[in-house]
């Protein structure tokens, strides 16, 4: 027996609420606000780290990262020396998922040279900060912002090199931040440049790897891949090694840009490779680290780490340390090309690893800085850095 009426108005209202609810819920898990993913950089017993300061976002949306800061910590026990805020355009996450202004989320790791530490932000600013006091030495540009800087900065030849999402490569005077040259590529740059000798190598969304003069920015050569390049090139034995979104790992002649060999994996290459003893170790999104012969690209080993490799590896005493997105840390014995599980921090790892004095430093996506013994994997200390 029917006991209730059929409330047509309520049905319509229910449908509308359902639509609105699902619309909002539909954006769950999709980030449109940058959160940052910077790792630590170590210099003389001090770790420089740029955590994002996350602000609550709108309903059903990922928190929006609107600010960041640079923190200097003791590498020995993690005590904080100083911290300085890095300015970002103030904005809320909004009811949707995207904030209208530019947050200062940091993706590239800081770079240290002399008495300054340099860092670039998603807000399109480059900061130079005194490593002892945390005082700001200069900021570029002084007025306004560039397009988002997602790759890190590279310091060489007394210059600061970086690329931005507007497709421009910049060289600044490391001492005062004055622009020395810029080179326009025309498509987004998310990669950190690499400098070897007087040559700068940088990849772009336009599927090309560029070799530029680090002195004046003139183009030396370009190599066309089949997919976008966001990883940082590796210079080793007069060769340049780079992975691409087309799933190929390329080896190029550093002088001419000619292709020497290429290796096909199952998914993207995002992270920088490491070279040791004439072998290239390249982490891939297919969850494997490929050990390839530096000369001919021969696959020496495909080490299955069972989770995508995103963060930059480090080389510690003849062992290559890789971290996976799932939070497992593996040590690869380069003598036999075998991987052993060193630790499992059970937190997502995107940030580059860093190491000094037999200790590995890992900054997780959950904003915890872990210090692990590089040989045993034992946790030395762990701190939340927000």
């Amino acid at each position: 027996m029917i006991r209730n009426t059929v409330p047509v108005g309520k049905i319509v209202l229910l449908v509308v609420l359902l639509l609105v609810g699902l619309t909002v819920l539909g954006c769950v898990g999709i980030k449109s606000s940058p959160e940052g993913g910077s790792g630590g950089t170590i210099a003389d017993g001090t770790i420089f780290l740029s955590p994002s300061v996350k602000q609550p976002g709108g309903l059903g949306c990922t928190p929006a990262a609107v600010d960041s800061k640079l923190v200097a910590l003791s590498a020995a026990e993690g005590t904080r020396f100083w911290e300085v805020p890095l300015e970002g355009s103030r904005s809320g996450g909004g009811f949707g998922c995207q904030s209208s202004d530019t947050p200062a989320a940091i993706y590239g790791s800081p770079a240290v040279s002399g008495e300054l530490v340099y860092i670039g932000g998603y807000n399109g600013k480059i900061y130079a900060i005194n490593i002892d006091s945390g005082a700001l030495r200069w900021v570029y540009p002084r007025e306004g912002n560039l397009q988002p800087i997602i790759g890190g900065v590279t310091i060489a030849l007394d210059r600061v090199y970086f690329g931005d999402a507007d497709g421009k490569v910049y060289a600044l005077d490391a001492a005062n931040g004055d622009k020395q040259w810029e080179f326009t590529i025309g498509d987004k740059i998310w990669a950190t440049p690499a400098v070897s000798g007087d040559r700068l190598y940088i990849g772009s969304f336009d599927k090309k790897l560029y070799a530029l003069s680090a002195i004046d920015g003139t183009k030396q050569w370009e190599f066309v891949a089949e997919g976008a390049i966001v990883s940082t090139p590796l210079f080793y034995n007069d060769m340049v090694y780079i992975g691409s979104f087309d799933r190929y790992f390329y080896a190029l002649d550093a002088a001419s840009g000619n292709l020497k060999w290429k290796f096909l994996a199952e998914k993207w290459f995002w992270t920088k490779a490491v070279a040791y003893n004439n072998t290239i170790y390249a982490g891939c999104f297919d969850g494997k680290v490929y050990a390839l012969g530096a000369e001919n690209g021969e696959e020496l080993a495909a080490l299955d780490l069972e989770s995508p490799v995103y963060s930059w590896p480090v080389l510690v005493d003849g062992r290559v340390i890789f971290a996976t997105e799932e939070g497992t840390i593996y040590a690869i014995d380069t003598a036999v090309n075998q991987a052993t599980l060193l630790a499992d921090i059970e937190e997502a790892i995107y940030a580059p690893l860093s190491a000094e004095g037999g200790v590995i430093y890992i900054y997780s996506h959950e904003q915890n800085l872990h210090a692990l013994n590089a040989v045993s994997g034992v946790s030395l200390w762990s701190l939340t850095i927000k």
Partner: protein
Amino acid sequence: MGIGDIWNLIAMQPMINTLIVLTHYLFNNFGLTIIVLTLIVNGVIFPLTLKQVRASKAMQDLQPKIAELQKKYAKDKEKLAREQMKLFKESGVSPAGCLLPLLVQMPIWIALYQSIMRVLAVVPENLVGLSQYLYSWPIVYSTLPLENNFLWLNLARGDIFLALLVGGTMWVQQKMVMSPTADPKQQTQSSMMLWMMPIFFAYLTLSFPSGLALFWVTSNLFRIGMQYFIGGWGGLVKSESKKPAGRDKKYKERIAKVEEFPKLDEFPKLEEFPEGDADIVVPGSTQEEGSSYEESGDKRPDRGGGYTKSIRATKRQPKRGRGHRRKRG
């Protein structure tokens, strides 16, 4: 395998890879791809949308009758429910007909716009996340990341003009399906819906990437076109501009028949019938006489003959007071 994995496997992965491949063949123009894929998806689920629109329209056409019943049986909810159900049955309208197609379509829409958001890869986190959805087709890998520029738009950012377009098209679409009503309560509700939803979605559009707004605008325009062919401009203009066609005509005819049925208080009173003259009753009269269907042994008081059948000869057997069975002779 969790529900998220199943969702990714059957909805997200096909949609994302289709978007990327389509972009490759549409001159690497992601804006054009959004428009084309939205139209394709709209075309695929067209029968469901059509069913839903027709059911909603028929439901709205019934509103005056429903309001009348609600007024009549304001104090007897049980009776009201039965009468409403009967009305729906007579007119061939199912309240579920409005909801079910919508519920079936929702996952498709969610998958489509989640895919658009993911493929846009506004921030590095998105691009990293996108990799897990990709098929191992070379074309997919060589096409990514997609170009975000389309016309004057950066598809990864909100756009004020597109926000206005989303709000405007949504308003037009809603206005077209809106039927005039005499009930002030319903009128207020309709009016609120007419303005609140477009404003809400326009606001959302400003804070979402405009690629998603492009999808909304295309969908709205498709539905406006569809509704025009079904019922003309509807509530957008005061006069009827188009004749109902096909199935809608049938709905209208059935509703019209229902409307021919005299109001309940216009029926002759019991005493006016001669004793033992006939055995056909006014539908719904059983409850008034304090007898349930179960008691009478009748599982279905009405087998679909409805009001129109009943009014041909509405006489009853006063003493028995049930009258669900016909007696011949």
